């Protein structure tokens, strides 16, 4: 794919629809962060919020996905009263950039190759975001203890990847089916 093409996929198209979609995405992210946990065992839960960047990315490109996740996380902190954790917001922004890109590519053609690419990007994005970016920021901003931070980060990335793959892929598949079914409508 040409570099221009890649650029478009990254930045996405920014019109009123995109703005609204990102806003709704952020809202969903905020709500799901606080209430969308799938309780696995006490006190740990997979947050379904991670599907949001997948969907936004699939429909509008990587940057919209990232903004939705970033703003969404800030909103989640504000409405949930967690106190601002810029470190995680920025982390989510970075992760979503990768995931969104993967989703966008996958939407253009739902092939095994792209599925693999998507999964790889999920792992890469989360690893980079929560394995490197967030811990460093946490250390700087909040001076948390590094070991704990890393443990949290690792758990966070793993659960996110899990959600993005186990939940994200089916959703993406539905989406692609939808858009496919969306052409040449004719009464039978």
């Amino acid at each position, binding site marked *: 794919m040409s570099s221009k093409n890649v650029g478009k996929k990254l930045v996405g198209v920014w019109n009123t629809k995109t*703005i609204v*979609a990102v806003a709704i995405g952020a809202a969903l992210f905020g*709500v799901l962060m606080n209430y969308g946990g*799938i309780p696995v065992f006490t006190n740990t839960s997979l947050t379904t919020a991670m*599907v949001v960047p997948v969907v936004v990315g699939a429909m509008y490109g990587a940057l919209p996905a990232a903004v939705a996740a970033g703003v969404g996380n800030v909103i989640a902190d504000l409405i949930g*009263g967690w*106190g601002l954790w810029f470190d995680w917001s920025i982390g989510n922004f970075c992760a979503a950039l990768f995931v969104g890109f993967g989703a966008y590519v996958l939407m253009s053609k739902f092939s095994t190759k792209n599925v693999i690419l998507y999964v790889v990007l999920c792992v890469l994005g989360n690893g980079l975001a929560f394995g490197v970016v967030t811990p460093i920021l946490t*250390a700087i901003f909040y001076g948390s203890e*590094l070991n704990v931070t890393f443990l949290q980060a690792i758990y966070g990335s793993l659960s996110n990847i899990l959600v993005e793959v186990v*939940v994200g892929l089916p959703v993406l598949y539905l989406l692609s089916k939808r858009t496919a079914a969306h052409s040449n409508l004719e009464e039978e």
Partner: protein
Amino acid sequence: MNNKFVINYIPGPTMLHKLTGFTKVFLFAVMSVAIISTFDIRLLVPLLIINVIEIISMKPDYKPIVIMFTITFFTVTLLGNIMLFFVSPGVGLTNVGAEHVIWRLNDKLYLSKEFLWYIFVFFIKRTASFASVIAFALATTPSEFASGLNKCGLNYKVCTIVSLAYRTIPDIANDFVNIRNSMMMRGVELSKKASIGKRLKNTVLILVPLIFTAFGKVGSIANAMDLRGYGKHSKRTWYAEHEKTKWDPVIRALTILLLALTLYYIIRYRIIDPYPVDYWCPWVPREEIQQTNAIDTLFILKWIRKLKGE
């Protein structure tokens, strides 16, 4: 569901409520920087107190705040600290710069005065940050938030993202409830008793329509905005950004003062002449502080060393 959130859609009566969006956003931003910039209890406590006073001055409904506080701190902080105690009890040494052991099981597991001091200060810092967020959330309506951000020079499209997001949160909450109901009415079992696998499946079963319903509105909302000329010009005015009250200049001045102090503190005490460790501690005089490199404490590195060493 949405009543559990601290969102304030209707402008309140008190002085802080009446301030313009810009003033509040500015204050909040500076406050966050100040809280983030320091680990010194002598600064954190005053910052905490300021925010608590702000909250009290707004005479809020304390119930949701208290609930949040308990949840956040007795899950996140408490668990975090217990974990911390087992993973690296030596955190006191690395951050406070000394170690007076109170109780010791073996060299892997012990409790020191500095460890307790560390988690205490850390708790104060978190609480201050929590308080500042609550204060802001209570004082500011989403529209003021958006207009304030725009006044701070942020592109207005980004600002609309914020206000629109807040606009849709209660709708999403309602959709969620309705979808769950219509699923249950049509015979889907959504009880808590189900197994993890089933729970995952059911959550997805709700999540998918929730997502599609939410994003299904994009078209008509965007149309409504386009039809009323959204994005016509490179700027826009804000109904929510009302004229200044007599308090705005005062608060803005104080905020600038706080900003100046913070910058001075950062430059003077964190860059020019940094305190040897992050955490000041009353019973650890500066000259007795022993410096350790936090990176060395990383268990991953320790492992690697082990592998290399033996």
